[in-house]
C-alpha cells in the first residue's frame, strides 16, 4: 500500500498534511501519534470512508477508487462495530455476506473465524453478553472474513486486559504469517515496539518520523542508556562525572536529591566506574536502574510532553 502526499482538512483544521509512507507486503506497521494527530482520519482515508483533498492511495499498484480494490482491505474500527444483539455466528455470517462470500466459502470462513478467535463454544451466544476481550475478537474477525491482503486496525486493543491483548496480537501474528499486511494505530507503545516491523509517527497531521524502532532510536535519542542511582542520603554537592568526555556533563546529580541520573553509552565499562565514584564520595547505593531506549522515549522526544486535547 502506497500513500503519497495525502492531505485532508476539515474547515480550518488541517487533519493530514502531505502524509507519505508505504506499507510493504506482509509488513506490520504501527501508526502512532498523540490524540488528534490525524491517525483516525488517515485510517478512514485508507479505508475509503473519508475522501482526501489531495494525494493518492494505491493498493498493489491500483488506486483505491478503482472498483474491487477496496475488497483487498479489511477495516476494524475502534468501537465494537458488530451487532450486539446477534450471535457470534450470525455476525460473522452477516459481515461475510456483506463482503460477498456465499455458500461453502462463507461456511468455511465462519468455521475458520470461530476457531481463530477461540469462540467455537460461544458461536451461538449473543455478542452483547460477551466480555470486552471477546467482543474485540469478534470485532476483529468480522473485518477479516474476506481474507484481505491489507488489514487496517484502529486501536484494536483499547480497553482490554493484558491477556486479551496478548491473544489479539497472537491472532494478528497468525494473519501476518499468512501474508496479510497489517497497519494499526495504538497508544500502547510497548506493543508497537514489540509487535510491529516499522513505525510511523504522526503529529499535527504530518509524518514526523518513520522507520524501524532501531532507526527511530538512532535518529532521535540515540543508543545511550539512562542510569538511575538511588543513594542513601541527599546529595550534598554534585559529583564529578568521570564517564563524560565533554565539559558540559562534567558533573552529575543535583544538590539535595537522593538519586543521580545520567546517560551512559557503554554500560559494561562505564557503570562500574560510576558506582566507584559515588562510593568514593561516601554515599551508599540503595538501588541501580538501567533503562534502555524505548519507543516511549522516542515518542515523547518527537511529540513533546504537552497535552494535546
Amino acid at each position, binding site marked *: 500500500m502506497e500513500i503519497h502526499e495525502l492531505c485532508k482538512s476539515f474547515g480550518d483544521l488541517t487533519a493530514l498534511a502531505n502524509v507519505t509512507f508505504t506499507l510493504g507486503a506482509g509488513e506490520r506497521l504501527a501508526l502512532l501519534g498523540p490524540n488528534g494527530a490525524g491517525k483516525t482520519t488517515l485510517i*478512514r482515508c485508507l479505508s*475509503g470512508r473519508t475522501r482526501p483533498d489531495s494525494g493518492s492511495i494505491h493498493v498493489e499498484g491500483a488506486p483505491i477508487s478503482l472498483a474491487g480494490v477496496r475488497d483487498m482491505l479489511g477495516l476494524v474500527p475502534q468501537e465494537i*462495530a458488530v451487532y450486539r444483539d446477534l450471535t457470534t455466528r450470525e455476525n460473522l455470517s452477516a459481515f461475510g455476506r*456483506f463482503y460477498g462470500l456465499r455458500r461453502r466459502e462463507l461456511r468455511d470462513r465462519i468455521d475458520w473465524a470461530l476457531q481463530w478467535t477461540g469462540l467455537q463454544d460461544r458461536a451461538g451466544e449473543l455478542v452483547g453478553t460477551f466480555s470486552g476481550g471477546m467482543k474485540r475478537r469478534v470485532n476483529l474477525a468480522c473485518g477479516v472474513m474476506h481474507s484481505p491482503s491489507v488489514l487496517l486496525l484502529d486501536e484494536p486493543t483499547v480497553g482490554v486486559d493484558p491477556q486479551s491483548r496478548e491473544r489479539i496480537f497472537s491472532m494478528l501474528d497468525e494473519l501476518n504469517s499468512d501474508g496479510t499486511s497489517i497497519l494499526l494505530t495504538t497508544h500502547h507503545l510497548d506493543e508497537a515496539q514489540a509487535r510491529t516491523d516499522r513505525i510511523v509517527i504522526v503529529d499535527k497531521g504530518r509524518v514526523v518520523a518513520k522507520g524501524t524502532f532501531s532507526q527511530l532510536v538512532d535518529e532521535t535519542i540515540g543508543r545511550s542508556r539512562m542510569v538511575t542511582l538511588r543513594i542513601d542520603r541527599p546529595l550534598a554537592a554534585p559529583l564529578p562525572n568521570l564517564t563524560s568526555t565533554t565539559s558540559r556533563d562534567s558533573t552529575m546529580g543535583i544538590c539535595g536529591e537522593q538519586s543521580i541520573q545520567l546517560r551512559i553509552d557503554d554500560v559494561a565499562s562505564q557503570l562500574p566506574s560510576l558506582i566507584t565514584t559515588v562510593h568514593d564520595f561516601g554515599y551508599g547505593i540503595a538501588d541501580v536502574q538501567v533503562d534502555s531506549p524505548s519507543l516511549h522515549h522516542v515518542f515523547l522526544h518527537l511529540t513533546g510532553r504537552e497535552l494535546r486535547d
Partner: protein
Amino acid sequence: MIWTVIFTSVRRLFHNRLELILTFLVPIAFFSIFAVIFGGGQSSSIIPKIKVIAVDEATNADSAKIIESLRECPSLRFVRDRDDEAVSRSAASEMVRRGIATMAIVLHGENNRINADLLADASDQVAGQVVTALLSRAMAMSLHDRDPNNLPDSHHMIAPPSPIPTVPTVTVLDIMGENKTNPVVSMYAAGIAVMFLLFGATGGGGALLEERESQTLDRLLSTRLTMDQLLVGKWFYLSGVGIVQVTLMFVWGQIVFGVDLLSHMDGFLMMTVVTSSAAAGFGLCLATLCKSRGQLNGLSLIVVLAMSALGGSMVPRYVMSENLREAGLWTFNAWALDGYDKVFWRELPVSELWPQLTVLLLSGAIFLVIARILAVRWECD
C-alpha cells in the same frame, strides 16, 4: 447530599436541551393542539359544521320551508347547495356513503303530513343527535306556522284543548354500519395501527443511527454494501414489519372485536402495504435527519404524536373544525385513515382508494429520496 442530587439533576436537564423541550414545551404544544380541536381555538365561534344534504321528496311548501329553516342553522353546511338539479334519496345515500356528506335529510310526506328520514353515517356520533334536534325543531316550527293550535305554547295552556297534534317523526337510518357486526372498532383499529406504525418505523429507522454511533456503519460501507442498498434493505424490512404489525392488529380485531377483515381483504392489503411502506420511508427520513438516537426519540415523539392528533388517530376528525380538518390533510395519518375508512366503514370498491394510495405512495417515495439525500453526509467525509 440530597441537595447535590437535586442540583446535579437540574444541571443535567439544562445541559440536555432536547429533554428540556420535551419536559416543558411538548405538554404545552399538545395541550394547544387538543384545545384547538375541542375548543375551536381562542374563538369558540369556530365550531365544526355538519355537512348535510337535503332531499325533498314531499315537494310542498312545508318541506321547502323546513329546508329553508335548516339552511339558516349555523351548525349545518349544505353540500350540493347550489345545484339546480334535485338530489334523489339514493344519490344522497351514496354521497353519505362516500363521505361527501355526513348526513342526508330526506323529507317525505303522505296526506299532508311531513316526516323525515336521516340517512346517517353513524361514525359521527355527535352529528346524528344534533341534526335530529335541529330537524325536529324546524319541523315543529313549520307545523306551528301552518296551524298555531297544533303546538302547545303558553297561549294554549289556558285555551280549550285542541285535537291531538300530529307530531312529525324523524327516523335515523344508519346506512353505514347497519350490517356490520362491530362497525366503529375498525376505525379505531386503523387509527391506533397507523400511529404505532409510525412509532415502529421511526424506532426501526433509529437502528441506522445506532450503527453510525457504533461505527458499524463505517464498517458496513467499507464492504461491498452501498448506502443505496442499505437504505432500500432497511426500507423493505421496516415495511414488512409494519405490514405484519397492522395485519396482526386487524386479525386480533376480527377474532376478539368482530372487525370484518376477511370480507375487506383486498382493500386492507392495498392500504396496509402502501401505508407501511410510506411509514418506513418516513421513519428513515426522520432518522437520517437526526444526529443521534436520543435526538430521534425526542423528535419522533413530537412529530408522530402531533400527526396522530391532527390526523385523526387520537381524536376523530369529524369533531375538528374545517380548518383543522384541512390541516390534517398534511399529515400522514389522515390519508391512511381515510383509506381504511373507505375500506372498512364506507365499504367502497378498491378503485375508490386511488387518492389515498397515490398520496401515500408519493409521500413514501419522497421520504425515501429525502432520506437518501440526507444520508450522503454519512457516506464519505
